[in-house]
């Protein structure tokens, strides 16, 4: 039996934090025995810990850290299909495959996420309206599942092979098996650069309007919102758009080696900031600065800088200090969506809950996952510093979302009340049926699944 480590773990928001029994297997044998470890009541897989809430925590039970099972096993340049272990990160994929002209079909705002995590949270990016979520790029998944004799067995699932289990795993928060390997499709790109555009708009109406025009047709589109302005300027935004830059659009010498974009230099936040550092005033100043300096412009920038602006600041979550923060992300249907977004933003502004980062985007079609988050509508994401009053605010926001037919993203959740879950995720029963079939004894469990009653 490989050694376990008793450690206090949190996800990227640093809240909540629980004691867990973690294993970090480096071989498949060690992975098997970590799954089958009878000394822990249940297990949940954890990649690089970039979800925000309690999805990869398992209080007083087993956490299997997959970061050392990160091997790229096979790549087919003709189809772009990569077979790899679940612990491989998008950063490693970009390092190895962007120089060869391939990029993840979908990437979230950090490259420090694993393939397993990307599948389990069915992550989306700035191209959701055109390219869907990570599910669309996932061809097959190899799951480890408990059996009656205590050992675990491996099973490949895909759209052709136990499609029900495959679908439930897309966005299934790791509760339908431990992902050992997967096959994902990368997309060919013309260069390692993005032709990016930045456009300022004065208020929320103009931002929403923007998505229906030429800006909304760009492959990548997102709006950064200043949630602290009120009145006529409420919801003033910067619309950020992008396309993969064709070789002939690259200036000068870049065009001769279009895939050789410089790797960004990284800095680290050395300490937890004191909690006073982020307050409505400092955030207001930052937001004003960001808005003023985002001059309307188009420019060519390295893909890594466009997609992962915060990755160059390692451990940036420390600016929220020890108390941590919660990220809140919701999607509301387009019908009455503008009213929903306005109501949510208004509630946040009134609470004076300073959000450093608020983004808005239009989402496209859902994936097949019954617990997958994205659906057609407006999605709003905010970072909110953790305070005693925050959970109350988030519960208010949940109630507003439900009223407008919206749902909350479970990968960024540590406070949703279980009664909202069936309304937000109407295919929940379908998910539970799969869970009952493949893991009736709930050997797979997490702090999130217990909080939301998913183990019942």
């Amino acid at each position, binding site marked *: 039996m*490989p*050694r*376990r*480590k*008793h450690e206090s773990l949190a996800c990227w928001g640093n809240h909540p934090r629980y004691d867990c029994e973690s294993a*970090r*297997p*480096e*071989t*498949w*044998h*060690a992975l098997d025995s970590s799954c089958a470890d009878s000394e822990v009541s249940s297990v949940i897989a954890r990649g690089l810990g970039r979800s925000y809430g309690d999805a990869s925590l398992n209080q007083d039970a087993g956490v299997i850290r997959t970061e*050392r099972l990160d*091997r*790229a*096993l*096979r*790549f087919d340049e003709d189809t772009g299909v*990569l077979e*790899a*272990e679940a612990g491989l990160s998008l950063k*490693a994929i970009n*390092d*190895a495959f962007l*120089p060869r002209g391939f990029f993840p079909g979908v990437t979230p705002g950090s490259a420090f996420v694993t393939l397993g995590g990307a599948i389990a949270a069915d992550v989306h990016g700035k191209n959701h309206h055109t390219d869907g979520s990570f599910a669309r790029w996932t061809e097959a998944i190899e799951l480890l599942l408990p059996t009656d004799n205590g050992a675990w067995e491996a099973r490949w699932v895909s759209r052709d092979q136990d499609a029900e289990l495959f679908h439930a795993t897309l966005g299934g928060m790791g509760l339908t098996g431990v992902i050992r390997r997967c096959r994902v499709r990368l997309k060919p790109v013309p260069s390692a650069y993005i032709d990016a555009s930045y456009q300022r708009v004065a208020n929320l109406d103009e931002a929403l309007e923007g998505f229906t025009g030429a800006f909304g047709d760009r492959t990548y589109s997102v709006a950064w919102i200043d949630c602290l302005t009120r009145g006529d300027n409420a919801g003033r935004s910067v619309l950020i758009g992008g396309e993969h830059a064709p070789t002939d659009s690259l200036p000068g010498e870049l065009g001769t*080696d279009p895939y*050789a974009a410089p790797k960004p230099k990284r800095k680290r936040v050395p300490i937890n900031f004191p909690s006073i550092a982020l307050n409505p005033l400092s955030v207001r100043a930052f937001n004003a600065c960001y808005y003023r300096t985002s001059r309307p412009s188009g420019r060519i920038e390295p893909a890594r800088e466009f997609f992962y602006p915060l990755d160059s600041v390692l451990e940036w979550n420390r600016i929220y200090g020890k108390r941590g923060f919660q990220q809140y992300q919701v999607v509301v249907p387009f019908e009455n969506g503008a009213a929903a977004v306005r109501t949510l933003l208004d509630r946040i502004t009134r609470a004076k809950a300073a959000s450093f980062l608020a983004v808005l985007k239009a989402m496209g079609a859902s994936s097949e996952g019954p617990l997958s988050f994205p659906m057609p509508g407006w999605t709003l994401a905010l970072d909110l510093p953790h305070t005693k009053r925050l959970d109350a605010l988030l519960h208010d926001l949940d109630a507003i979302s439900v009223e407008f037919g919206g749902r909350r993203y479970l990968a960024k959740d540590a406070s949703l009340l279980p009664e909202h879950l069936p309304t937000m995720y109407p295919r929940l029963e379908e998910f539970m049926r799969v869970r009952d079939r493949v893991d009736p004894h709930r050997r797979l469990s997490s702090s999130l699944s217990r909080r939301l009653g998913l183990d019942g």
Partner: protein
Amino acid sequence: MSQERSKHGTVIVGATSAIARGIARACAERGDRLVLAGRDLDECERIAADVRTRFGVESFAVRLDVEDMDPSAFVQACAERLEGAIDRLVLSQGFMAEQSDAQGNPALVARTQTVNLTSVIQLCEAFVPHLRVPGGMVCVVSSVAGDRGRPSNHIYGSSKAGVNAYLEGLGPRLREQGVGVLTVKPGFVDTAMTWGLPGMFLVADPQDVGNSIVRAMQKRRHVIYTPFFWRGIMLIIRSIPGAIFRRLSL
């Protein structure tokens, strides 16, 4: 991939350890052809697939149990796969039992010495005549634990001290032929061996350690501590007089 590729033929034994994986990736990034040998052939295959897929190098997996091996047959197998060009031998096999378990357990003592010391000498002796002359390189991952005998870890430490002494003599013996010998003394490295152990501090990332080992091979260094600050720590520990060292509970 515009950097010039070195195309060394490198054999890594104990290839499934985290440090060896770090070394394999660092070598592959520089374009080496690799033979990855270990007891768990499936794991070696996956590591070989990884460096092939990520870096586009040729790589081969070979099963080798250093407790039960025919060193000359293994040399043969490596030479075939690397088409005769063996430039570097990297030995990373290791076994560490808890000191308290090994005390009074002859089998664990034997295993510690066989894996860490005897097999290292056997493999070095078997490979030396086949390494490229000049320019070949022998690199062994030893440990700071071999620098001083401590009550808490001296059965393991003695095997590493033996390795250090053997390599100290091997270096000058091969100097005339232009074959280098590198003794690597890692401090605490964040691997399965140290995961969850109490009392770990300044734990290094195995990929960083792998990178520094490959840089040291390129510079043809003789002894390195990794991370570098362990040189200072061990300088202090080695200079403590025996009379005082015996009274410390280390």
